[in-house]
């Protein structure tokens, strides 16, 4: 039913990059995430699936403290990056986000040139000392996002002038330019057409070489295609987490089976 070739290709246990224990998220009085325990492995693609409103995007935003920007959101539990608690009072969320990059649902390039879009992160983090070094970072990031050949002749044109798929790949280039260790992707293909989607999916598979990638997706086919591990969220609970091949072919939980066979969601 699902193409899980990628999943079957790589099932070895990797180092644990991020983990959550007893994670709870509240929006005011409403609890959006309940008792989530998860280990995100390094150099692997982890997919979060589940019906709308199940908390998968909320949990993704826990991992780089983007929920801090929502005044009523409150996070409890232990969430670690390389064993360090990212919600420790001593942790500056800005420093954390340089290591845990994010790509959003809707392509959101800055209304600046393509070059400046990619160069912005390295610039504010002081990753390049000269123009030549910055040029190299921009080229490398755009190449990694499989966008270089399309835009190399118009780096000074506005990023907002690109097509939707190109914009999303520009956002990925912008995210990888700061050399993050984890890349969070919140439904990165939901605003894209099938061709752009397949390009971005190919890209995600390549990014696995260097990063730990966590992707939230509504499309189970996409989860099956790109991820090695899959987590199924339902009503704020993490229902089942395991190797993608196992989740899609032999789910242990009844709710997971109902969801992937289309009965709930």
């Amino acid at each position, binding site marked *: 039913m699902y193409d899980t070739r990628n999943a079957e290709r790589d099932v070895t246990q990797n180092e644990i990059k991020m983990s959550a224990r007893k994670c709870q998220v509240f929006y005011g009085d409403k609890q959006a995430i309940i008792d989530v325990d998860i280990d995100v492995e390094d150099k692997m693609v982890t997919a979060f699936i589940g019906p709308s409103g199940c908390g998968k995007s909320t949990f993704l935003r826990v991992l*780089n403290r*983007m929920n801090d*920007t929502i*005044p009523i959101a409150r996070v409890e539990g232990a969430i670690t990056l390389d064993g360090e608690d990212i919600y420790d009072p001593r942790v500056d969320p*800005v*420093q954390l*986000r*340089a290591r845990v*990059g*994010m*790509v*959003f649902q*809707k392509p*959101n*390039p*800055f*209304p*600046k040139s393509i070059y400046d879009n990619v160069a*912005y*992160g390295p610039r*504010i*983090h002081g990753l390049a000392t000269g123009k030549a070094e910055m040029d190299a970072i921009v080229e490398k990031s755009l190449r990694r996002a499989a966008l270089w050949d399309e835009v190399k002749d118009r780096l000074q044109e*506005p990023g*907002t002038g690109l097509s939707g798929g190109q914009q999303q790949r520009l*956002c990925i280039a*912008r*995210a990888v*330019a*700061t050399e993050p260790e984890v890349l969070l992707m919140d439904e990165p293909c939901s605003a894209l057409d099938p061709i752009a989607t397949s390009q971005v999916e190919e890209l995600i598979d390549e990014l696995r070489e260097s990063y730990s990638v966590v992707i939230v997706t509504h499309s189970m086919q996409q989860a099956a295609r790109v991820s090695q591990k899959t987590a199924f969220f339902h009503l704020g609970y993490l229902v089942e987490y395991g190797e993608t091949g196992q989740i899609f072919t032999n789910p242990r939980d009844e709710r997971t089976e109902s969801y992937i066979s*289309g009965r709930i969601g």
Partner: protein
Amino acid sequence: MTDAAPADPRPVQGAPSRPSLLATSDRMKRRNAAEARFRAYGLIAISTAGALLVVLLWNILSAGLPAFQRTVVTVDFTLTEDQFDAAESVLFKTREYETYFIAALSDQLRDRGLDLEFDSASVERLLGKVGATLRSHYRDNPDAIGQPVRFELPTSSRVERYFKGGFARADIGDTNRFITAADLDLADALKQAGVLRTAFNWTFVTGVDTGSDNPGGAGIGASVVGSFFMMLVVLVLSLPIGVAASIYLEEFAPQNRFTDFIEVNISNLAAVPSIVFGILGLAVFIQFGGGQLEIQALKASAPLVGGLVLSLMTLPTIIIATRAALKSVPPSIREAALGVGASKMQAVFHHVLPLAMPGILTGAIIGLAQALGETAPLLLIGMVGFIARYPETFMGGFEGPNSALPAQIYNWASRSDATFIEKAWGGIIVLLLFMLTMNLIAIILRRRFERRW
């Protein structure tokens, strides 16, 4: 993934036949009529507003444009050394100068084939105190003695109004001591001879206020300078404070009852009548600041105080406009910046603020324009006084007593001489020109900032 059966497009047997598309149904006709009516209302509203605007502009221009013109009498005059010595040695010095002037004018007219009789009284009614003008000119420029000088003397306000159609000859009574029918004959003759002509009234643009003895010489210049210094104060104070306050409230402040309270009050402040700010300025700046605290710069009638009061008035406008501009920047831009590890301040200053800039500038310039036209608070802090000189130093521009454009207009409009009323209308044209310029600047700045992306 439910399999809903597609709707059957074929008409069901026995169902009533569907109406033809070619005939408009009654319901549709009513809807179309409602739409046509609404369009008509809109057109009526627009044309009414347009017609009123035309009437307003026509009124202002027809009443105010004459203020930019004046009638002058051009006389070539040479004062010899002997004449100067003779005039300076007698008791009534200016009377001597007037005699010389009358002789020169008579000669000039005779050269053009005009033989007119006029005495010093009629010259004074026509041209004011010519002797004094001449004497002060030669006292200020002793080198001019013995040289031919061309004097352009403005006519008295009554002659000016006569040529502008302000009154007819029949309106002059026999007992009028300001003008007689004979004076008007003389003026007409001078005009025919080309000695008297209409010229652009530079005095109105560059001059200062005058007393009721010389309404024709009154100018708006000093009050423009007063307004300029006030606007400088408003710009320097309210733009940075307003923008900083908005950025803090919109992007950084926690959402709680206290900030809600501040928000509500800022909105309320924008609706507070300006005269309230005037009395506040009088109490806080002049009476407390200048009086009790003895701060020298805070004096009544000082443009600095006027600027402070207008800043208070402009702040809510700028804050509301800036917050609206910041709100209109899509949150995805903030998220994108935070997502690559920008700090909150970097996200705001690198990405949000540039996008909000056109809106902020528009708001700031609207606020400034409002402040420029504001009169009521100025009345209370004494900026409607009689100001007959320019500030001498730059700091004097802030501290010295001055008036402002709208206050000067108000002042002139309340005087009795018709020439001052005309100047009030002329002042309104100057004020509108400033407004127009400011709006133009706003448009240009907006275009410039928008073109960057």
